[in-house]
């Protein structure tokens, strides 16, 4: 049982790390603000989500698991809001 859980953890955290890597490459390589934001949201939403998903089987208690999930939810909320604000500022100031 614990072996299966470890497999889930390794798979999900690796996938999350891949999305963080892809998001970072996109942030560095994409040409303008809006596409860079697009790349960044992949790291925030999917990368963090998959890392949290992978860590859930390792959580000692329900309480720890809920804490992990709420970290992801707060990350989603902050990421989505900040992306909106940056995109709005970028549109107002013209292409950058």
């Amino acid at each position, binding site marked *: 049982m614990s072996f299966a859980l470890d497999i889930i953890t390794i798979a999900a955290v690796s996938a999350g790390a891949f999305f963080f890597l892809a998001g970072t490459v996109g942030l560095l390589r994409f040409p303008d603000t809006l596409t860079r934001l697009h790349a960044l949201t992949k790291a925030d939403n999917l990368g963090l989500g998959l890392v949290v998903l992978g860590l859930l089987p390792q959580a000692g208690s329900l309480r720890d698991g809920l804490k992990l999930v709420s970290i992801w939810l*707060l990350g989603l*909320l*902050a990421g*989505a*809001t900040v992306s*909106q*604000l940056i995109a*709005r500022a970028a549109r107002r100031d013209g292409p950058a």
Partner: protein
Amino acid sequence: MSVATLLEMVLAAVVLGLGVWTIAARQTYAATVGFVAYGLLVPLVWVRLDAVDVALTEAAIGGGLGGVLLLGAAAQLRATEMASAAEEPGRVVRLGAAALSVTISAALAAAILLLPDPAPTLAPAAVANASATGLANPVTNVLMAFRAMDTMLEKVVLLLAIVGVWSLASDRTWGGRPGPHHQADPHGALAFLARLLPPVGIVVGIYIFWTGADHPGGAFQGGAILAAMWLLVIMAGLTDTPPASSRRLRLLLIAGPGVFLVVGLGGLCFGLAFLAYPPTLAKPLILAVEVAMILTIAVTLGMLLAGVPERGAQQ
């Protein structure tokens, strides 16, 4: 070499690199962004050193509120930056500054390297006497009981800092509201976040304050989170900064050092020494001081970031 050691080495290299980048960056804004990233990575170093209390404070102050403060300063400097960049300091000044920095770095490095091994520590004594106060977190014990004098003076420094910021106001705006009146779309993303996040943030802030008795946390970390929530609501235009002349605001600003001082003098009158708590009342007294302190810290940090009074008291 274990994975953890490798991680620590990479972390140390990145932190050092960010430090160099912050100093070397030409533009104020770029240096600020470097400093914020630095302030977010240093907490990880503290966590690796098992100093979770310091990590929490560093994340809240160094990465969070300090970053916002510097970003605001960078935005205000943008207009004059080009002009000041043309004024290169002379060779003597630059050499003098370099010599001073190198001397200080060398002295700090020498002080660290010349420490006896094992380094002298009072940690066992602090842990051994933890039962005297009824608090289980040794850091809170040191801050609130064993070295309470330092913590009280730190709160006085916060008060002096806010007085310093306010004294930059012009005569016309003295006692007025700090910062611009923020206006955001009442149905926009920022206003939405400012309605959704503060209930969560206030609970988290109070939890970190409360758990500080037995686990890492405390009034400073909790107060910083409360201040961030307050600033979020101000930036979204849902409320305004209070005028600096507001009596309620000023009472909150002095609540922390005031209650601390009263408790300290009480120790002098009824007990053995200044800031000596009677053993049976230690925990309630510390709690009272901490409640006053978290309010003062939250309001002080918020007002420090809100800045200089810019709008007259009548407006």
